[in-house]
């Protein structure tokens, strides 16, 4: 729908930045993220715990076994050389190493090179005091499990140390962590996708309703929603349809009322009009008083008839029954003929040298001109000119022709320039009936006629030092 003036748009600047769809997607994504993070963390912690515990158990077991073995064999030890040989025979799997403390000497095994300096001081002291200790230590940059077991069964001071690197476990845990992170990411993406899908499912019936509402608002009162297969949405479409029907009935009833009333008034108006004509013919035979009464009656019956006709006309717009009987018209010729028809043949017309054709309904266009000229006569001391020009394209680029009616009155105050096209608008000049047959619907009807053609109508005050108003409207250009 076109507006009654240079387009103004009202923006709901306080509307939410993120709509329902965005929030749904964010919610699902966030949910996916949180859930997967919780799960991942739990999994990781659990895995970490078990792996570490298991490794610990295995290492402890092995260390104890090895310690027992070494202890047994140590009973027959004579010198340090034998001690070294003994340690070398201890089995330590990849990633672990053993150390045998005999009196004050340390003898290591396997290739890793686990030495005295790697034993934590606190641990050694504890072991030398006869305690079996285990701890996590940082040995040569790797986290390792360090076990110290005093050998009590042997005749001399001895202890068995074993270190098990946890780097393997660390590697496993790292891989796990990466995998879980990747999984979380995927879950989040899946969540977003799900949110998108959910958004679409939820919003699609909403956009259907929105489209239907727009259609109704633009006048297509018959629009209804088809029954939704979804049980939960059925109530919604049902309620919507009920509302639309109630609305349509209301609107049609109102419009029909205005139309019916006007229709019923036709016959009595016919009698009134014809009777007044008969009386006027005998005017000179009437006494002075009767003559005055007849004159007053005549003027008002005329005005009343026009009001009824205008009401009928506008009610047809309201009920959507207005149709357009278009034909190509040369703008200049139309304007000149219209001016002649409304009794203002001498108003100067300014038009471009070339012929401009408009695609319009003659009867309606004549009414527009009539109403604008009448308005100029009533409030602007008469129209002083009509201008025809090409206007900027409207909407889909339809070329438009603009016709402006100019007067030299006092113009229209800025605040009234929009409302002046309202029905029964009473501006600052309102209330004066004068000698014209203005009905208060003139400009409102003109606006309806213009909008039916797909054009715009507006008023502005003349610029450049001259006072007066300039009423302009646009009509689509006829392009063969």
């Amino acid at each position: 729908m076109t507006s009654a003036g240079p387009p103004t748009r009202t923006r709901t600047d306080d509307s939410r930045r993120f709509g329902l769809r965005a929030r749904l997607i964010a919610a699902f994504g966030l949910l996916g993220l949180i859930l997967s993070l919780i799960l991942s963390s739990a999994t990781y912690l659990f895995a970490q715990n078990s792996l570490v515990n298991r490794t610990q158990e295995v290492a402890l077991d092995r260390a104890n076994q090895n310690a027992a073995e070494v202890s047994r064999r140590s009973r027959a030890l004579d010198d340090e050389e034998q001690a070294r040989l003994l340690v070398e025979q201890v089995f330590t799997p990849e990633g672990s190493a053993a150390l045998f403390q005999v009196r004050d000497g340390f003898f290591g095994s396997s290739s890793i090179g686990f030495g005295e300096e790697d034993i934590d001081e606190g641990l050694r002291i504890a072991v030398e005091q006869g305690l079996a200790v285990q701890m996590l230590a940082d040995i040569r940059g790797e986290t390792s499990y360090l076990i110290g077991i005093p050998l009590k069964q042997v005749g001399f001071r001895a202890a068995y140390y074993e270190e098990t690197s946890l780097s393997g476990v660390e590697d496993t845990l790292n891989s796990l962590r990466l995998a879980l992170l990747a999984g979380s990411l995927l879950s989040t993406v899946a969540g977003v996708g799900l949110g998108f899908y959910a958004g679409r499912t939820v919003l699609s019936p909403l956009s259907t309703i929105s489209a239907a509402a727009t259609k109704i608002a633009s006048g297509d009162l018959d629009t209804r929603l088809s029954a939704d297969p979804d049980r939960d949405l059925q109530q919604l479409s049902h309620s919507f349809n009920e509302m639309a029907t109630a609305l349509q009935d209301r609107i049609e009833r109102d419009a029909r009322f205005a139309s019916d009333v006007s229709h019923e008034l036709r016959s009595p108006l016919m009698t009134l009009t014809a009777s007044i004509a008969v009386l006027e013919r005998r005017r000179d035979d009437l006494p002075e008083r009767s003559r005055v009464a007849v004159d007053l009656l005549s003027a008002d019956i005329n005005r009343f008839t026009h009001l009824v006709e205008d009401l009928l006309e506008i009610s047809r717009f309201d009920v959507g029954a207005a149709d357009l009987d278009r034909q190509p018209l040369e703008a200049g010729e139309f304007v000149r003929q219209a001016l002649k028809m409304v009794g203002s043949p001498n108003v100067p017309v300014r038009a471009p040298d070339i012929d401009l054709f408009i695609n319009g309904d003659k009867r309606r266009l004549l009414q527009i001109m009539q109403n604008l000229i009448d308005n100029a006569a009533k409030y602007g001391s008469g129209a002083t000119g009509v201008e025809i020009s090409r206007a900027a394209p409207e909407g889909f680029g339809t070329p438009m022709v603009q016709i402006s009616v100019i007067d030299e009155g006092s113009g229209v105050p800025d605040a009234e320039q929009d409302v002046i096209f309202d029905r029964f608008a009473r501006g600052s000049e309102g209330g004066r009936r004068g000698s014209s047959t203005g009905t208060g619907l003139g400009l409102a009807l003109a606006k309806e006629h213009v909008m039916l053609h797909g054009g715009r109508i507006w008023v502005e005050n003349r610029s450049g030092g001259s006072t007066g108003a300039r009423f302009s409207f646009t009509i689509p250009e006829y392009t063969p």
Partner: protein
Amino acid sequence: MSIKILTVEDDNSIRTVVRMALEDEGWEVLEAGNGEDALAIFKRDGANVVLIDIMLPGIDGFEVCRSIRRSTDVPIIMVTARDDTHDVVAGLEAGADDYLTKPFEPKELSARIRALLRRARSADPEMTTMTFGDLEISPDEGLVTLSGEEVHLTKTEFRLLVELASSPGRVFSREQLLERVWEYGYFGDGRLVDVHVRRLRTKIEPDPAEPRYVVTVRGLGYKLQA
């Protein structure tokens, strides 16, 4: 013999006051309150112009119009309600020469009646007979024949045909025809022309769907093809 106008209107008040207005113009007025009375009066007394309101009790105005049309080419004006655009076309198709919408000014009605009475007289005694294929038009006699057989046209249809025939091949716009035949100006109702062309075609064209004589020129108007 004075000019007789037959008014067919069921509303008593309207009928009375219209009669007074028309009598003021010097015409004799016959009144009927319904279709049956109208046909009876017309048959008995005849009339120069018939005014029929669409909304009648019993047989409707269209039917009255059609009945009268079957036997005579008397000028008929239909009185319609303003917003019934279908009524206008239906009235014209039923055979009316013109229409008025209620409420109208009596002086408007008088003007239309006078225009119809002017049209009722022979078109132009100075124009000679014209022949186009099987169609023969004699403006001085007010006669049209198709392959020798007389075609019964209303006064308006006849005037329309003569206007088109006055310059065969020339395209007349609706506005021009409205001006010449109905004496309306630029803002006359184009439907008057369109429906009358349709009616003319059903009477003189061998195949009204594919006109050979009265041809439409898209976007411009109508012409008589020689």
